[in-house]
C-alpha cells in the first residue's frame, strides 16, 4: 500500500506544477520528459522485472506512433480511437516479436540483437512504404480540440501525459505485487530454476513483452498527437530504443519509480549540457552515454537503489537491535 500512496503523492505534486509554472519552455521539457518516462516504464516491465534487455523498443514506439497517425490522416478516424488502436498494434507487434524470439530460446545478446533487427526492418519498411509517407513522413492536420486529442495549451498536454504515466506507474506497482510479477522476477533471476518450479517461462516473458510494448506504444501515439508529425528516423530510430532503456537503468531497473526518476535526471542532464554548449549537437547525448557507463559501474541499481541503500543504512543505525534480529532470522 505504501507504494500506492507514494504514487498518488508524486502524481499530485506533478499535477500541481502547471499551477505554478506557466513557462512553455519548462512545460514542453516536462511533457517530453514524461513521454520518455512512459516509454521507459514500458521497457522496465520487460527489461527490469523480466530481465530481457531489448535494444529495439523503437519497434513498439514507432508502431504506436504510425498507427495513430495513419488511421487519422488516411482514414479520418477519431484521434482517441487511433491512439487506442496504436497501443493495440504496439502490443500485437510485441506479441509477434516475443513469440518468435522466446520460442527460439533467444537470450541475452541474441535477444538484444533480434529486437534491434526488428526495429531496423520496420524503419527501412517505413522509409519506403507509401502508406507511412515514405521519406517525407506524415503530418497530422491541426485541429485544436480535446475530442481530437489536441490541446491549445501545453498544460493540458502535460496533464494527459501525466495521467498516462500515472497509469503506467500503477501497472508496474500492481505487477510487482501480483503472482504474475513474482513469476516474471523468478524468470529473471533464474529461468531454468523457475521452469523447474512449474513457471511457464515463455508465456510469462511473452505476457510481459505485450504489456511492455503496449506502454511504449502509448508513448509513440502521444508523440504524434503532441508534435503532429512522424517519420521513419523518429518513429523507429535508435534514439528511442536507447532512451527507453536508459531511463529505467539510470533511475533504478525493476523499480516502480525508476523510469520516472531516470527520465527526470537524464533529460535534465541533457538540457544542462545544451545550456552549456548552446546549439552544438552531440554533447547532450554524450552525457547520456557517460552516465550509462558510470551508473552501471558505480550504482547498478540506479538512483532509486542508491536512495534505498542510504535509507536502509540510516534505519540500521537508528534501530540496531531490531535489525540484528531480522538479520539473524534471515541468516
Amino acid at each position: 500500500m505504501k507504494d500506492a500512496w507514494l504514487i498518488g503523492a508524486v502524481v499530485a505534486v506533478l499535477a500541481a506544477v502547471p499551477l505554478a509554472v506557466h513557462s512553455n519552455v519548462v512545460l514542453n521539457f516536462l511533457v517530453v520528459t514524461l513521454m520518455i518516462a512512459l516509454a521507459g516504464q514500458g521497457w522496465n516491465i520487460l527489461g527490469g522485472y523480466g530481465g530481457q534487455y531489448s535494444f529495439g523498443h523503437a519497434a513498439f514506439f514507432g508502431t504506436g506512433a504510425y498507427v495513430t497517425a495513419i488511421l487519422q490522416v488516411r482514414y479520418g478516424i477519431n484521434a482517441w480511437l487511433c491512439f487506442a488502436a496504436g497501443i493495440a498494434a504496439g502490443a500485437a507487434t510485441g506479441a509477434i516479436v516475443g513469440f518468435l524470439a522466446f520460442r527460439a530460446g533467444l537470450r541475452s545478446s541474441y535477444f538484444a540483437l533480434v529486437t534491434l533487427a526488428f526495429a531496423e526492418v520496420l524503419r527501412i519498411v517505413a522509409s519506403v512504404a507509401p502508406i507511412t509517407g515514405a521519406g517525407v513522413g506524415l503530418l497530422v492536420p491541426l485541429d485544436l480540440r480535446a475530442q481530437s486529442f489536441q490541446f491549445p495549451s501545453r498544460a493540458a498536454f502535460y496533464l494527459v501525459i501525466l495521467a498516462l504515466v500515472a497509469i503506467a506507474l500503477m501497472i508496474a506497482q500492481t505487477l510487482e505485487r501480483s503472482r504474475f510479477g513474482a513469476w516474471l522476477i523468478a524468470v529473471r533471476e533464474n529461468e531454468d530454476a523457475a521452469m523447474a518450479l512449474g513457471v511457464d517461462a515463455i508465456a510469462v516473458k511473452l505476457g510481459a513483452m505485450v504489456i511492455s510494448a503496449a506502454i511504449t506504444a502509448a508513448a509513440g501515439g502521444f508523440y504524434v498527437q503532441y508534435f503532429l508529425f512522424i517519420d521513419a528516423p523518429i518513429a523507429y530510430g535508435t534514439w528511442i530504443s536507447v532512451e527507453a532503456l536508459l531511463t529505467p537503468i539510470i533511475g533504478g531497473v525493476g523499480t516502480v519509480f525508476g523510469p520516472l526518476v531516470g527520465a527526470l535526471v537524464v533529460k535534465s542532464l541533457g538540457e544542462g549540457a545544451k545550456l552549456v554548449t548552446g546549439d552544438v549537437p552531440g554533447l547532450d547525448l554524450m552525457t547520456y552515454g557517460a552516465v550509462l557507463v558510470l551508473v552501471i559501474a558505480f550504482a547498478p541499481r540506479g538512483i532509486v537503489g542508491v536512495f534505498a541503500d542510504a535509507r536502509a543504512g540510516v534505519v540500521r543505525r537508528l534501530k540496531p537491535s531490531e535489525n540484528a534480529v531480522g538479520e539473524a532470522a534471515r541468516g
Partner: protein
Amino acid sequence: MLSPLILITAVLNGLLAGAVYALVALGLTLIYGVLHIINFAHGALLSAALFAAFLAWQKLGLDPYAAAFLLAPAFFVLGYALQRFVIGPASRGDDRNMLLVTLGLAVLIENALLYAFRADTRTIELPYGFRTIDIGFTFLAVPRVTSFVAVFVVALALWLFMALTDTGKAIRAVAREKLGAELSGIDVSHVYAMTFGLGTACVAIAACLLIPTYYVNPSAGNAFVLIAFTIVVLGGMGSVPGALIGGLLIGVVESLGGFFFGESLGQLGIFLIFIVVLLVRPRGLFGASA
C-alpha cells in the same frame, strides 16, 4: 535487358564489398567468441577509425593503406584499454551489464565525434580512387580489389597468430573453457582485453580499406555494424571462417538485392536473413552451439 554478364558483375562487386563486411564482422565475432557478448560499440569504433584515417590523410598526407600500419596498433591499444579499464571493471562479469556498457560507449563515442566534427559527410580524393581494372567483360575498382586481397591477408595473419603464438592459444583456451583456462594460470582479464584489442584493430584496418571509396560521418560505422551483426549470426557467433564466408555471402545478397529491388530494399533482404537465421538456426551456419 538482363544479361548474365551484368549479373556476374553484380556478384563480383558484391564479393568485393562483402570482403570489408567480413573484416568488420571478424572483429565482432572474435569478441563474441571469447567474451560471449555482442560489442555494440563496434560501429562507433569504426566511425572513429574512419575519422582517424581521414585525418591521417588530410593533416599528415598519409595514404590510407600506409595509415593502416599505424592505426591498427593504435586501435589495438585503444580496444585493450577500453576492455581492461572500462568495460571489464564496470560490468563485473555480468553479460547484460557488458551489453549496456558497450552501448553506453557507442553513444558516447558517436556523439563525441558528432561534437568534434559535426554531422557533415566528408570524403577524400585519392589519385587511384577511381582507377579500374579491365577483366574482359567488366571493370572492377582498384581500391575494392585491393581491400579484397588485404582482408584475406589479415584473416590469414589472424589465423596464424591464433594457431602459433602463446597468446593466441590462451585466447582459444579462454574461448573454449574459461574456468579451466583460469585454473591453468591464464590471466583471463588480460586475454579478454587482448581479444577486444584485436577486434578493434580489425575495425581500424577495415576503416583504412573503406576510406578510399567510402565517406565518413559520425554515424558512418553503424551501417556496417548492422550488416556485421547479420554476418556474425549467419556465420555462427564466434566462428572466423563463418565470418569470412558470411561476409562474402551478404555482400552478394546486398548487391543482387539492390540490383533487382533497389538499394534500400536490398538492405531489407539482409535484415530478413538476419531475423530468419536468428529464429530458425541461432547458432548459424558454422557455429558450434548457441
